């Protein structure tokens, strides 16, 4: 190529082909492009004008474009094609494929998510349904419980009502105690039913503890009486001991406390076939210093003793059988009691500090010598619905709920519950709980307190307890102390004799017991002891036989043993274990004959004031042929504030009851010579009838009919028939000599209570 410069045309020759190729190559990404320009004026015969005619190239991809050279008569067309066939575009392909795969994955994920959502929604609906059903079931359960409880409560109330009526009749001390025990058990059962309803509250997390004053000892007595029959049947020794330091009244929730103790004692009774169940209550501070010391000695020195005696009968526990928790043995127990009697300083300081915080922490232990809990099950027993063994509920019954609820309750009371158990030896469950201290506020109503009123007629009596087992003797002593009786313990009958003999050593002094309690086990072993007691010279002052009453204590007694005991000089009344202070009191009343003094209970009205309110100022006629009976009956009625006149025969009574008379009532003896009570009453009614007819006919209008209340006095209340009394016109009968409760019942029928004036 050359070109001239200098105002002339510049010309050069270009190789168009290479130019085009270069250009196109640059444009086409360095790929060779073949360009053909055709003259297509004649469409069927294109004339090639540019480009290589014979190079084919890649005819699959062809680009045609029209060219316009400005010549109107010719058409030109340019056809471009790649020189080489384009290689398959891997990038695009793989991208596409990847894209596709990604899309697939995303699709899958979305699908999975969608599925999941659907599933969750389904589950949700299902759950909603289940929830509705569960709620319905819960409501149904509560309704069922309420209905069933109502169904149970109705006959229970019937039982309690009947027992209440029974207690209002004349019963001897033992009968009264049995009836009262039955009533207490019935009330406990009703309380249990209420607690079953309460369980709904527990499950809803809405349980609250009460804080009222109550008497711990009487609650424990009640719980023990629930199980006395069953434990007696199994031959188990059941006992309770409450330390003196525990206050009489504490503030807390008596129902829940009873629930816990009932659960533990019930378990013990269920799983124990031999030996004892011993409930102990202490202040929780006392135990620690003593037990640490003793435990070590046991480990170090006494271990051979334990091994030797395991399964043996001679340990110093309540029944002699070994117990799981060595810390409860006699030595510790003795220390504890000794501490209470002599060393008050240290512990009173502690009690004082607790008083400052108005709280006292008690520890309750329930020790049994039962089958124990296998080690493998020991960590599961507080879980609800778990029992130590799957066969437990089959063999022993129960649902396994109790312990878990007890644990909840104990923890609500601010305490802890735990246990020590050795299989085939026994278990000891213990728990601590906080209680408030009861401040005797004069404003507080004493009625609210569940304070058991033990008979006080035994205060100051002295007794000797003969028992070879020290722990058991301590329990007996505890109950007797509650009745105010001073007790000395002897472990054999001959020792008891030497305690009270006149020639007793001067160091022991002269202890004259009024009663000797002998444990049946200790008596059977040493039979000749009784005769030595009898042979003791009991005479003093030349007049009196101060022979003490001998009473037997037993868990169970056969007829033979009873006969042997009676012939050896024991009284008819045998005091049955488990001991309860109220029952011991009742038996003593029977033995000593100090009468049927009743407790100031809530059921019974305070005798004399209510009879007094009925009879005060009333004019009463007493008819009896015996002068002594007249005097006594008149004296009793006068004591109630009545105005009393006497008649010594049926005839005399008729004379005194001629109209008009001012008598309000008449007490008539039935068996009298000449005219008996029935006949006299019949005549009196006749007189009344005629008198009523006269007054009615005089006045013209019906006046109220005069009817003198006449009550029969009979010594034989059992055989007296109400019908016979009614037949002749009497209004009822009373016992002879008078019995307050019975008198009140009979008289209340026709006298209204009046407010009584101050005794003049």
């Amino acid at each position, binding site marked *: 190529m050359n070109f001239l410069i200098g105002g002339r045309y510049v010309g050069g020759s270009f190789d168009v082909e290479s130019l085009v190729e270069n250009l196109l190559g640059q444009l086409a990404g360095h790929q060779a492009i073949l360009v053909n320009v055709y003259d297509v004026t004649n469409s069927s015969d294109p004339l090639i004008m540019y480009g290589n005619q014979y190079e084919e190239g890649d005819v699959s991809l062809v680009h045609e474009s029209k060219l316009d050279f400005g010549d109107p008569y010719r058409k030109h067309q340019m056809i471009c094609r790649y020189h080489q066939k384009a290689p398959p575009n891997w990038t695009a392909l793989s991208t596409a494929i990847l894209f596709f795969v990604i899309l697939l994955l995303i699709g899958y994920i979305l699908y999975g998510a969608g599925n999941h959502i659907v599933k969750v929604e389904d589950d949700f609906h299902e759950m909603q349904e289940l929830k509705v059903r569960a709620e319905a079931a819960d409501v149904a359960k509560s309704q069922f419980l309420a209905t069933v409880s109502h169904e149970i409560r109705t006959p229970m109330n019937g039982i309690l009502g009947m027992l209440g009526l029974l207690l209002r009749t004349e019963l001897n001390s033992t009968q009264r105690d049995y009836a009262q025990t039955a009533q207490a058990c019935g009330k406990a059962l009703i309380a249990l039913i209420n607690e079953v309803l309460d369980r709904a509250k527990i499950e809803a997390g809405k349980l609250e503890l009460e804080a009222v004053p109550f008497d711990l000892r009487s609650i424990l007595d009640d719980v023990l009486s629930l199980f006395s029959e069953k434990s007696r049947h199994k031959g188990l020794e059941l006992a309770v001991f409450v330390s003196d330091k525990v206050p009489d009244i504490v503030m807390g929730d008596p129902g829940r406390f009873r629930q816990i103790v009932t659960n533990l004692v019930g378990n013990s009774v269920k799983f124990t076939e031999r030996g004892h169940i011993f409930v102990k209550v202490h202040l929780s501070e006392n135990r620690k210093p003593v037990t640490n010391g003793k435990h070590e000695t046991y480990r170090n020195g006494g271990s051979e003793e334990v091994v030797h005696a395991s399964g043996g009968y001679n340990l110093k526990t309540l029944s002699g059988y070994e117990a799981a928790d060595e810390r409860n043995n006699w030595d510790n127990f003795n220390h504890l009691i000794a501490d209470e009697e002599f060393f008050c300083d240290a512990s009173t300081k502690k009690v004082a500090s607790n008083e400052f915080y108005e709280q006292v922490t008690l520890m309750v232990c329930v020790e049994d010598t039962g089958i124990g809990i296998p080690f493998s099950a020991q960590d599961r027993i507080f879980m609800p619905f778990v029992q130590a063994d799957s066969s437990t509920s089959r063999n022993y019954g129960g649902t396994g709920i109790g312990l878990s609820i007890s644990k909840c309750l104990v923890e609500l009371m601010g305490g802890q519950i735990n246990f020590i158990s050795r299989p085939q030896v026994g278990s000891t469950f213990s728990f601590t709980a906080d209680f408030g201290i009861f401040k005797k506020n004069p404003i507080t109503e004493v009625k609210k307190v569940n304070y058991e009123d033990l008979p006080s007629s035994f205060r100051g009596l002295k007794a000797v307890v003969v028992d070879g087992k020290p722990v058991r003797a301590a329990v007996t002593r505890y109950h007797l102390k509650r009745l105010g009786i001073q007790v000395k313990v002897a472990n054999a009958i001959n020792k008891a004799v030497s305690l009270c003999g006149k020639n007793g050593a001067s160091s022991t002094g002269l202890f004259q017991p009024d009663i000797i309690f002998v444990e049946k086990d200790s008596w059977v072993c040493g039979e000749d002891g009784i005769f030595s007691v009898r042979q003791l010279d009991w005479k003093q002052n030349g007049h009196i036989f101060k022979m003490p009453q001998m009473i037997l204590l037993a868990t169970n007694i056969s007829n033979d043993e009873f006969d042997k005991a009676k012939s050896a000089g024991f009284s008819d009344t045998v005091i049955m274990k488990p001991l309860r202070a109220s029952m011991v009191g009742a038996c003593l009343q029977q033995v*000593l004959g100090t009468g049927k003094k009743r407790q100031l209970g809530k059921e019974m009205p305070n005798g004399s004031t209510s009879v007094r309110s009925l009879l005060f100022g009333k004019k009463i006629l007493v008819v009896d042929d*015996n002068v002594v009976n007249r005097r006594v009956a008149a004296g009793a009625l006068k*004591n109630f504030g009545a105005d009393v006149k006497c008649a010594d025969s049926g005839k005399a009574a008729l004379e005194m009851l001629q109209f008009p008379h001012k008598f309000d009532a008449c007490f008539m003896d039935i068996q009298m010579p000449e005219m008996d009570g029935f006949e006299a009453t019949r005549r009196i009614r006749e007189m009344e009838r005629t008198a009523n007819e006269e007054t009615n006919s005089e006045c013209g209008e019906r006046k109220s009919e005069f009817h003198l209340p006449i009550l029969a006095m009979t010594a034989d209340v059992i055989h007296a028939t109400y019908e016979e009394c009614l037949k002749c016109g009497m209004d009822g009968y009373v016992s002879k000599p008078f019995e307050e409760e019975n008198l009140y019942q009979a008289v209340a029928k026709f006298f209204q209570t009046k407010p009584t004036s101050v005794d003049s």
Partner: protein
Amino acid sequence: MDHLHRKLRDHEAAMFQQGYLDDQFSQLQKLQDDTSPDFVIEVMTMFFDDSEKLLNNMSRALEQVPVNFKQIDAHAHQQKGSSASVGAARVKNVCGTFRNFCEAQNLEGCVRCLQQLQQEYSLLKNNLKYLFKLQQEIKTAGRSIHTRG
């Protein structure tokens, strides 16, 4: 004075323990107050008179030929009633047995029972007299303390 009180209390307790007296006697003691300060002694004196009369009647009736068991039974019934009213437990119990023998018309049994009854009665009477004596001693001792002023 304390030893007197103790003697009295011990004697009373012994009488209850040995079954001479029962709850009814305590009830009588409760009826004694300022308005009737000698109620117990009054009643017991009446009882002694009544019982002695009945015992005599019974013994005479047993000597009769033929023996009228119905009448003896009536007396025993009376005795039983009055001893129940004053709380003389042992006497009352013997009366019960006595009535059984009367019903069975067992003469030997009745005779033995009467003897037992007389024995129990005299024991009771002696013990009660001693009791009343002690009470009297206490009263006079108390009065003398007061009058010493």
